[in-house]
């Protein structure tokens, strides 16, 4: 009986979330739809990062670079090969997933701080590499959709029509990112609640015990890297589609740092928290700018905010939610 209640509650929340996402554009301006689409982009990236860092315990300060891989894949396909922007998304995810897998290989020998340093190095190095191979990447100037392939941009005319339904380009972007976001969220949720999720958590909690129960560390760690890479790649691809341009500076190492902060503030190991994490990294700078327009103020506020959160609420928003709901979930799932 309680199990049925639990499943029912879960389904209700899921339907509610979908309804909320679908309804929001009616409430906000067109401009804000674009911003919320960006929140969706961050959401997708940090859901993937959460699987890697929150659930499998592998620190990555390099996910901005994986986003860049996805973003540039999209840009290259659109400007060089004249693909339609949205059709590049799956391939961008795949390429980033492969790169994520490749990064996962050396990561097998590193952990904790050393892994953070190595992935940080990757994030810092990538912009230089992108500038170097300018034939493909457009070098420092990057690739602009408007210049090179305006015909491939969905909604360049200002409106998009799907199944006879007409909407603004910004609304389209919003629905695109959040549709992908919700599907991606559901996929990760399914992966994590079963065997795989337990294996990932086992690796995070105790590698020795995990091995003793038959968990293949190498296979699972690289898998986690690959999956989170796919998500970052998709996020990067969407990021470029939204902006219609990409340069080496679009994905600086600061982005990698920001993503990790978003995942931690949202709450590692908590999927719902990731929405809050994405909102945090998108809107905190904006809020700080309202407080003071002097240079450096937004960064200062950002820094203070994350320090306070780490001191007062280290498990992030998700941790808070988890603690608040714990009595309920224990009641739902415990037999007397």
């Amino acid at each position: 009986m309680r199990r049925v209640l639990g499943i029912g509650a879960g389904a209700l929340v899921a339907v509610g979330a979908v309804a909320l996402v679908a309804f929001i554009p009616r409430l906000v301006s067109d401009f804000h739809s674009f911003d919320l689409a960006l929140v969706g982009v961050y959401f997708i990236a940090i859901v993937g990062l959460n699987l890697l860092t929150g659930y499998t315990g592998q620190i990555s300060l390099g996910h901005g670079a994986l986003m860049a891989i996805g973003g540039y894949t999209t840009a290259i396909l659109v400007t060089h090969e004249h693909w339609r922007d949205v059709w590049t998304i799956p391939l961008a995810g795949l390429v980033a997933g492969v790169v994520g897998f490749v990064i996962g290989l050396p990561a097998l020998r590193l952990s904790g701080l050393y892994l953070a340093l190595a992935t940080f190095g990757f994030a810092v190095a990538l912009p230089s590499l992108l500038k170097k191979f300018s034939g493909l990447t457009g070098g420092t100037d990057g690739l602009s959709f408007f210049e090179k392939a305006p015909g491939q941009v969905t909604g360049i005319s200002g409106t998009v029509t799907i199944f006879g339904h007409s909407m603004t380009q910004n609304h389209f972007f919003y629905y695109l990112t959040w549709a992908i976001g919700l599907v991606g969220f559901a996929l990760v949720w399914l992966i994590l609640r079963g065997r795989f999720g337990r294996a990932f958590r086992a690796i995070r909690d105790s590698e020795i015990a995990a091995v003793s129960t038959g968990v293949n560390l190498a296979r699972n760690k690289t898998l986690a890297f690959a999956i989170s890479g796919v998500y970052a790649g998709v996020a990067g691809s969407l990021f470029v589609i939204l902006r219609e341009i990409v340069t080496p500076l679009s994905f600086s190492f600061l982005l990698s740092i920001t993503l990790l902060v978003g995942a931690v503030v949202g709450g590692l190991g908590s999927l719902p928290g990731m929405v809050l994490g994405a909102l945090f990294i998108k809107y905190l700078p904006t809020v700080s700018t309202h407080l003071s327009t002097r240079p450096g103020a937004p960064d200062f506020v950002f820094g203070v905010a994350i320090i306070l959160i780490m001191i007062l609420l280290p498990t992030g928003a998700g941790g808070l939610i988890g603690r608040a709901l714990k009595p309920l979930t224990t009641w739902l799932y415990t037999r007397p």
Partner: protein
Amino acid sequence: MPLAFDWTQLAQQTVIGLSSGGTWALLALALVLIYRSTGVVNFAQGEMAMFSTFIAWSLVDHGLSYWTAFALTIAISFGGGFAVERVVIRPVERAPVLTVVIVTIGLFFVFNGAARWHWSTETRTLPNAFSTRPIHVAGVAFSIQDLGNIAVSLGMVLLLWLLFRFTKLGLALRAAAVNPGESRLVGIRVSWMLAIGWGLAAAMGGVAGMLAAPALASFDQTFMQPVLLYAFAGAVLGGLDSPLGAVVGSLLLGVFINLIGNYVGWVGNVLKLPVALAVILGVLLVRPEGIFGRPRVRKV
């Protein structure tokens, strides 16, 4: 007739490399000191050094003599580092690695933002500590400034070594870092030791900034960011727990990068940074403890 290998050019490039490495060495030393005394990698070390440098600039701007400003900045930096540890790091001392990493990232933004807020973003200059008049030996040019940087770094290593080996304070610092629980039992005030470690590192960072700034024609709030990256690479190469390694690693890295940049055509200037970072990765994979570090053994 084949061209003879240009040894003078090689020597010159090596010297230039040593000079770059010299500017990174002091910051690398600060990173190692904090890592050794608190087990934390401080992503904000560069920004704290930058902040100290701006304080030095302010003091000079207000009329103090260079060396007075220099000494005062060191003292202020020590105090600042000490305070940061007590206020910000202490609450998360026992937290997992990731939490502390995020906190130091937060410090990065705090110091960066504060520096831009308080001092406007126009560029400034700081006088040199040593003469920059070039000296020529066997056709190779170098300056006293470069030698000065390296000498100061090695001098700091020596001082640290003396401190750790021969003083009660040094012993207490080492004990607190390696085994805080038992150190408390023998009466060592561990929190104070950790704070002193941060203070010393911040002071060293201040010196690093004050010596690095004059080498640039002018500096602004971003000037320590590349230095931090190279300092990380140098410290990892030399061994994150070895002060001597920090200096030697940075010098080696400087030479290596400069030679590669000059002699391997396709690397050029653009790829210098990725090469440095590839070095970090290579070292971490093959010998994570670096050249001078001690391997960590895990007991099951």
